[in-house]
Structures are given as structure tokens and as C-alpha cells.
């Protein structure tokens, strides 16, 4: 019960952070993907089942609040949650290098997967597969990941 409340709070906090604070927390106009970091964190600490459910929930929420194609983020965050959860037994989520690598891979997968769905299923040719234009966003997300991991670990310990 305590854990459930804890994750509901985190869900609300990360939703607010992602959807409401982009105006205030941005680096060169790019805003880090906090939700992606949180899903990777849950995957590395809790495993696939919980991470994919949270990924699905976050993706669905983001899709509802966005004006983009409905369902893309739901798919991508579910995939990221599932695969990052698969790594939790082999990798130590507390190590900064692991956090960098996994968040980086998750960001690349998110970007490529989103574009692939738009290109193949929705036949939207405006999307391209170059991740260079998103590299700054990925870089910022990767850079900020250990900070978020630290805060989440700290809060979890305190509670």
C-alpha cells in the first residue's frame, strides 16, 4: 500500500514535471525526458512487469496530453519499460555508467521507434531516422539521468 502511494505520487510528480515545467527547466530550448528516465529507473530496480505497466500508463497519459499521433508513446514506453526491466538482474542500477548507457540506449530506441511507427504505419514521410536533430535532447536526458536516479533512490530510502 505504502509502495503504491509512493509510485502514485511519483507518477503525478513526473507528469507535472514533464508537461508543466518545460518552460522553466530547459537547456538550449531542449527539455529532458524525465518520464523515460523514471521508466528506466523502475525497470532497473523493480523489473519488467512493473516497468512495462508504468511505461504503458505514462505513455497513455502523454498521448492524451499531446496533440501528436495517439498511441505511439504508449507503445514506445511499454517497450522501454519491458527491456530495461530485463536488465535489472544483470546490471547494477546504482552504477552511474549503467545509468548512462541504459538511458542513452532507451533514448535512441525511443527516437528511432517513434519515427519508424510514424514512417511505416502512419506513412508520415516528414519523420526521418536521423537522430542528430534529437542528439542534444538525448544528451541532456542522459546527463541528467544520474541526478534523477540519485533523488529517487534518496526519497525511497527516506520513506
Amino acid at each position, binding site marked *: 500500500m505504502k509502495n503504491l502511494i509512493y509510485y502514485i505520487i511519483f507518477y503525478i510528480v513526473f507528469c507535472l514535471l514533464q508537461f508543466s515545467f518545460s518552460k522553466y527547466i530547459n537547456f538550449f530550448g531542449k527539455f529532458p525526458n524525465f518520464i523515460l528516465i523514471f521508466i528506466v529507473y523502475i525497470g532497473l530496480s523493480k523489473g519488467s512487469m512493473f516497468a512495462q505497466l508504468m511505461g504503458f500508463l505514462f505513455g497513455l497519459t502523454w498521448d*492524451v496530453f499531446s496533440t501528436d499521433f495517439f498511441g505511439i508513446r504508449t507503445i514506445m514506453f511499454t517497450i522501454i519499460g519491458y527491456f530495461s526491466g530485463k536488465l535489472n538482474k544483470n546490471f547494477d542500477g546504482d552504477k552511474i555508467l549503467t545509468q548512462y548507457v541504459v538511458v542513452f540506449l532507451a533514448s535512441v530506441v525511443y527516437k528511432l521507434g517513434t519515427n519508424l511507427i510514424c514512417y511505416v*504505419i502512419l506513412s508520415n514521410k516528414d519523420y526521418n531516422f536521423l537522430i542528430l536533430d534529437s542528439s542534444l535532447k538525448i544528451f541532456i536526458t542522459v546527463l541528467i539521468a544520474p541526478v534523477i536516479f540519485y533523488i529517487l533512490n534518496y526519497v525511497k530510502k527516506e520513506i
Partner: protein
Amino acid sequence: MYQRQITKENSVFIILILIGFFFVIGKFSTPVNLIKSFIYYISYPNLNAANDIFYCVDNFANNIKSIVCMRQENILYKRKNQELIDKLRNYDAISQKYEELSKLLKLKKINNTVSVFARVLVRESDEWYRWLIIDKGFNDGLYNELPVVMFNKNKDNLCAVGRIIETYKNSAKVILITNSVCMLPVEIKDKNINCLAEGFDSNLLKITYIPAEADVKKGDELIVSGLSSIFHKGMPVGVIKSITNAISRDFKTATAKVFFESNIIYNAVILVPKE
């Protein structure tokens, strides 16, 4: 236990992904935006939210309208497609006929004859190899005993078919060379061997009076000999299919397949001598 957990994880993953793809393929953006705007309007009634709702409803209605229009267009195109397929089928038939007729026109003209082109009206199935009726008669200058030939597609020439035995105003009855009452003097092409082709009421002719020492082989071509009073000399008749080994009275016999049978008979040519 661990294995069961893995299976459960995978099952949940597949279900969630399928739901995700259902959202993407279903293109639910407009209805979701509509619901979102509506909820927003209920929470904070203002002009922008109302505007958003109307915009979304308009989009949604347009989408429905597009679907209905597309369906109607689809039905229309399917109908047009069917019409075009029918036209194409007709065109193919016409094209084939045109090709046949143009080949007939290109045929080498036979001296001192006028070609009368006729269509086969009747060819009864139980007397298939005996006779047929054509749609030209004495109004077109035809009379009894005229030779009837047909176009041989494989060789691009005219081959012997039969002769007219009854003539009416607008039709004529043709007895075929395959009729058992018919006999035709023939020769083996390029070998100068004279023999006789007898009808067999089938697509085969019985070739008799082949000299015992004659060098006749399977595949030899038969042409009308100079002894024929009906057909012109050299007109193709058929091809030897088999030769019997038994020799009686210094002659041997063979069977030959007629050329005209290789095509479906629709058009006949009657060679009328010039007066």
C-alpha cells in the same frame, strides 16, 4: 516459479503492445482531443475550450464524412473496374479476331479464284467430323462442289476442309474431308508419292495406296495432289501420325491428322473460280 513469472511478463507485454498498436492504427487522436477539450471545458468553461471542442467535432465529422465518401467512391470504382474488365475482355476477343482476319488478308492469292469468307453457322456435335453449315449461299455466288478451306494458324496458310454439297439462298452445307464417304487424292510433300486420303469420321484420315517401298515417315506432310478435281494442287491437308507395318497387295497404309482440326473452326474460305 521464475519461469511462470517470465511467461506472465511476456504475456502482459504482448497485450500492452497490441493495445498500443490498436491505438495507433485506429487513429484515435481526434476523438481523444474531443474528449480532452470537453473535459477541459467542463472544468474551466471558456471560449478557447469551446472553440477546441467545435474544431474537434468538426474534424471528427469530417473524418466520418470522408469514410462514407470513400466507401461510395470505392463502390463506384469497383463498378467502373468491372466495366473496364468487361471491355478489356471484349477488346481481347476483337483483337484476336482482327489478328486472324488480318492474317487471312495477307494470304497469298490463289490464281483465278475469288475468295468468299463465310462464318460457320452449324456444326453438330454428333456429326462433328462429317459436315457443317456456313452462312453464305448462292446469293453470294456459291454453288455445289466448290472447295472450302480454312486458315491454319500454325502454318499461316490455307488448308483443305471440304466441299459444298448443298447450296441454299443464304447458306450452304459443307461435307468435310474427314467424312467417311469422302476420299481425296493426296501426295506426300517433297516425295512425290501419290496416295488416297479417306475420311474416318474422326480427326484422322486413313491414307491408303502408299507404295510398299515408299519412304514415308511420321511427321511427313500431306498435300492435295494434282489428281483432285476440287482442291488446288499443293494445298496442305494433314500430317502423318503413324504408318502400319502390314503390307497388303504391295501397298501400305497410314493415318494422318488433319490440319484444320488444330484450330477452332469459325471462319471458312470458299474458293470460287473466276469465270
